[in-house]
């Protein structure tokens, strides 16, 4: 069943919302408004939106340190997410987790992680719970090309295969793990091929093509929902910015990137541009409509920014809460 015009335009909207969000917080970071750091996914929006569009209501996701896009693609409240990135009381963890710890339990977004590769096993475990509880959901676990070299990738995918849990593993291969080009970090750059080690289907898709990502994840999700077990999807994409907002500002913070690479990629690999062109080709979008959508998405961010910036700082006593849940037999 091909995606409708409306669905496609919604996907475009989501991609653009992510883009505006991350360009916006990059500015905020320069102004010193972001505590710590944050990792923008500019250039990777098609993976977030393609993958999340393939999910049903009630499906879970588990994500990484580079997660704003996943959260927004999955429908989390942009205001709450932005407030969290700014460390405000109205953020999803009241400013205590920041950009690396975003979640929305009302939407089954079970959280992101500051430890690379830690989410893979957690996503498998969510799949295990789904299977044991027979709820018909699935879980989507995002991770990066760098994370794919951690032992947790191996243990997590193998166990998922053994137990046939309904988890879809989505690797955003943005070609770098911090300063490490993917081609120097592993013996075989084809991460999807590792799936065969676990007798699991593996797909390599163009991560700048939101529809390709959608289709791959959709079929993996269908398979998982039917009880046929996990899949691994590798989406080739491009990190158009520095590793983190902090490092992007640091002198030498991008020293490891070949000269011209970012410009070249921005010109040729930008998924938003690519999708916009595609939608125009399909006749779903013209310049006017594109301008309108752009303005809408910018406004979403601007409203969120008003909300977040005007939100209170967390009260000092909140530093001590949530460490333990209250006891009590349930």
């Amino acid at each position, binding site marked *: 069943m091909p995606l409708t015009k409306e669905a496609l335009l919604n996907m475009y909207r989501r991609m653009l919302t992510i883009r505006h969000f991350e360009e916006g917080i990059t500015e905020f970071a320069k102004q010193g408004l972001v505590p710590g750091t944050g990792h923008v996914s500019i250039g990777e929006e098609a993976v977030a939106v393609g993958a999340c569009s393939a999910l049903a209501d009630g499906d*879970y996701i*588990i994500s990484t340190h580079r997660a704003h896009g996943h959260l927004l693609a999955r429908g989390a409240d942009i205001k709450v997410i932005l407030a969290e990135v700014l460390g405000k009381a109205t953020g*999803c*963890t*009241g400013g*205590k*987790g920041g950009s690396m*710890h975003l*979640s929305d*339990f009302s939407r089954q977004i*079970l*959280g992101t*992680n*500051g*430890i690379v590769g*830690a989410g*893979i*096993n*957690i*996503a*498998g*475990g*969510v*799949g*295990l*719970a*789904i299977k*044991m*509880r027979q709820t018909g959901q699935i*879980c989507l676990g995002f991770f990066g090309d760098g994370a794919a070299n951690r*032992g*947790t990738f191996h*243990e*997590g995918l*193998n*166990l998922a295969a*053994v*137990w046939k849990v309904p988890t879809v593993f989505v690797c955003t291969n943005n070609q770098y793990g911090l300063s490490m080009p993917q081609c120097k970090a592993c013996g075989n750059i084809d991460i999807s091929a590792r799936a065969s080690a676990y007798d699991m289907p593996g797909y390599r898709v163009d991560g700048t093509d939101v529809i390709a990502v959608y289709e791959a994840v959709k079929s993996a999700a269908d398979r998982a929902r039917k009880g046929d077990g996990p899949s691994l999807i590798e989406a080739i994409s491009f990190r158009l910015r520095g590793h983190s907002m902090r490092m992007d500002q640091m002198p030498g913070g991008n020293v490891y990137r070949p000269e011209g690479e970012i410009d070249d990629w921005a010109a040729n690999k930008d998924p938003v541009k690519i999708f916009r062109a595609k939608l125009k080709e399909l006749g779903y979008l013209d310049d006017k409509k594109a301008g309108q959508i752009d303005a809408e998405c910018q406004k979403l961010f601007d409203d969120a920014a008003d909300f977040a910036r005007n939100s209170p700082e967390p009260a000092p006593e909140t530093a001590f*809460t*949530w*460490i*333990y*849940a*209250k*006891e*009590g*037999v*349930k």
Partner: protein
Amino acid sequence: MPQRQISYREALAEAIIEEMARDDRVFLMGEDVGVLGGAFGATPGIYAKFGGERVLDTPISETAIVGYALGAAMAGMRPIAEIMRVDWMTICMDEIVNQTAKMRYLSGGHPEVSLVIRAAAEGGIGLGGQHSQSFEAWFVHVPGLKVIMPSTPYDIKGLMKSAIRDPNPVICLEPGVLYGVSGPVPTEEYLIPLGEAEVKREGKDITIVAWGTMLPKTLNAAQTLAAEGVDVEVVDPRTLRPLDIDTVIASVKKTGKLIIAHEAMKTCGVGAEIAALVQERAFDHLDAPIQRVATPDVIIPVNRALERVVLPQEATIVNTVKAVI
């Protein structure tokens, strides 16, 4: 209450079986927990009762064991994850410390991260340096975790049941040499709240806080010393985090003297924390410096005689008491 004598491992298995019967979110996972009933036979009969749907054998993948347990807990289950020995909790410290312990906090207080991670601990079995350790101090250092270390069949049963029901992650360290030791356990259901120490023996001359393998050794030493006219009070914290320091302090206020006995390495063991707290809160009640009986900072040898040289024994306790008194 009617009582029976059952072994530590039987009491542990009973606790798990009762809770699995009571709550279908509870399940057991780990290496060799299935038909074998645990590599140390720690959990006999559970698989026979519940089968492979709720007793899940895993590959040798310690990060996956804890990571999956955590994920399952976040999606509403209440896993009991066995890591065969605390020595290889070293492999999944990220999953325990950065993930499980912090997940509720880092998720805005939303999920109940209710799971138990169990492991055999301590030495005395001739298995050497990588199979005889006790890292309770590491876990006690980590906010977000609770830590229990029960030493009797009665305590493991009552504490394990509470741990399974607790809405927080609980680390349960089980002294491997005690699995086969029997003791009285009521036939009726009971719970022991986490965080309550027990005075295992009343006495007025000196307080010894002891847990793990050191608890039975301390109780024996207390008997030996009683014959010599020294009346030892023995406090078993049972839960190490949160630690019931009040019971310890009350005892010290009575006796004026304190020894802490644990099998873990002396330096930076939990004994140091108890000593630090007691001198802080009962400074004027102490008649002598607090002493620690612990394994000196060595690696545990396989040879049984050497192992006995390094692990603290009953005699070590007796001698330390005599030196303090």
